[in-house]
């Protein structure tokens, strides 16, 4: 189950796509599958300043509430309104249309706390 190329991953099952100092963030296919049918997503506000690995929102399936832990710190530039109105988009396109938010990276060195797709594959294989 190889991960899409060019992404970084957190142990909390978030992915990051970096474009300069702008990070796009979502949850992995493994995470959406584990959660089951996703019915609600609560995202941070545009302009909010997030600390790396802080709980900054929630994703809810039919049965459970899970925190979203931001894999990087920074200021929120944009949120994906589409997943707020149709949360099932996260199940259907976790790496695409189901992205959560974009932020302006606070500290480039925080990337070093994340892992590659290959390492993330190992993490989920270990369960």
């Amino acid at each position: 189950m190889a991960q899409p190329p060019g992404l970084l991953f957190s142990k909390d099952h978030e992915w990051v796509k970096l474009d300069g100092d702008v990070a796009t963030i979502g949850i992995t296919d493994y995470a959406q599958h584990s959660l089951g049918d996703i019915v609600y997503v609560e995202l941070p506000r545009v302009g909010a300043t997030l600390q790396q690995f802080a709980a900054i929102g929630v994703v809810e399936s039919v049965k459970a509430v899970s925190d979203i832990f931001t894999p990087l710190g920074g200021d929120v530039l944009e949120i994906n309104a589409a997943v707020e109105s149709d949360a099932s988009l996260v199940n259907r396109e976790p790496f695409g249309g189901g992205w959560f938010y974009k932020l302006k990276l606070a500290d480039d060195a925080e990337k070093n706390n994340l892992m590659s797709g290959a390492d993330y594959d190992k993490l989920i294989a270990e369960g």
Partner: protein
Amino acid sequence: MDGEPLRRTALFDVHRALGARIVPFGGFEMPVQYAGILAEHDAVRKRAGLFDLSHMAQFELRGADVAAWADELTVNHVATMKPLQARYNIFTNAAGGAHDDVIFYRLAGRWLLIVNAGNADKMWAYLQAACRGHVALTDLRGETALLAVQGPRSAEVLAPLVEADIAALKYYTCVETKAGGAAAIVARTGYTGEDGFEVFLAADAAQGLWDALLADHRDVLAPCGLGARDVLRLEAGMPLYGHELTEEITPLQAGLGWAVKFGKPAFTGKAALEAQAVDGDYPRIAGIVLDGRVPARAGYRVLRNGAAAGEIRSGSIAPSVGNKSIATALVDAASAVAGTRLGVEVRGTEYPATTVPLPFYKRG
């Protein structure tokens, strides 16, 4: 149940082979979902779903005094039941709270009593202690299975495998027959708000019937887990013990007054329930629909004009109610009046909601 190993139904390996996600429930390892809760919900509302409910305990009652004895322990009539009739009932405590909600099935020369899995040990001890006169109790746990076929196409799916003509069965009646070649009781009962059947049979016959049903009707019939069952029953306004009904929440509070027969000469908790009915001003279960999509979960606070009004007891997104966020709440009497504007506190923020009549969903 704490500390005791989880039990498995006769179909555990079948569930795993079907890719079910297994969770602990009522002391058992049970499938919560196969393909997905929403897909399974959709199957039951539009076609048919197959459930393993073998975790629910089956007790057999025999003897000349069963009806009179049970009438003194429960709120609904037992003695008036005719053979091959099924009836919903509630065992109450002295304060009118519920020990359990159950279904009695009156058969030829015996009764079948179905109790909730989570209450099974408690109920077995309670019934044994209360046993007197010509009443003989047999614990069928471990020997028996229960499969449910629920949904508008249930009869079409199940009838070819059952000897008796189940299409002619009336709601809340049953027949002793053969299903999948094995001795079975087939009842037109369920917990989904749809037409459907429940099949009681020996544990070692369960897989034969399960496999035959799916082999013949895989396009129509979806295996369904307890996750879909919970959404279906909530939409249909049916109580779940531990949520809408507890040792502290009485049948009157749960909106089950229709099942409380004050005309019976005596039953446990009757005086307390009569006093509650006369008083009238008691907290009760109400249906709530939130304005927005945020799910309301059990335990969330319910507010009215900013003051505490009660708490959420069950909640879900409801595919059959326009994908709205619905819930039951135990609230004060004034807040339970349909049309009342309420708030539900979710992670420190109050979300607006309205009290609505139950059920949320009624089949067309």
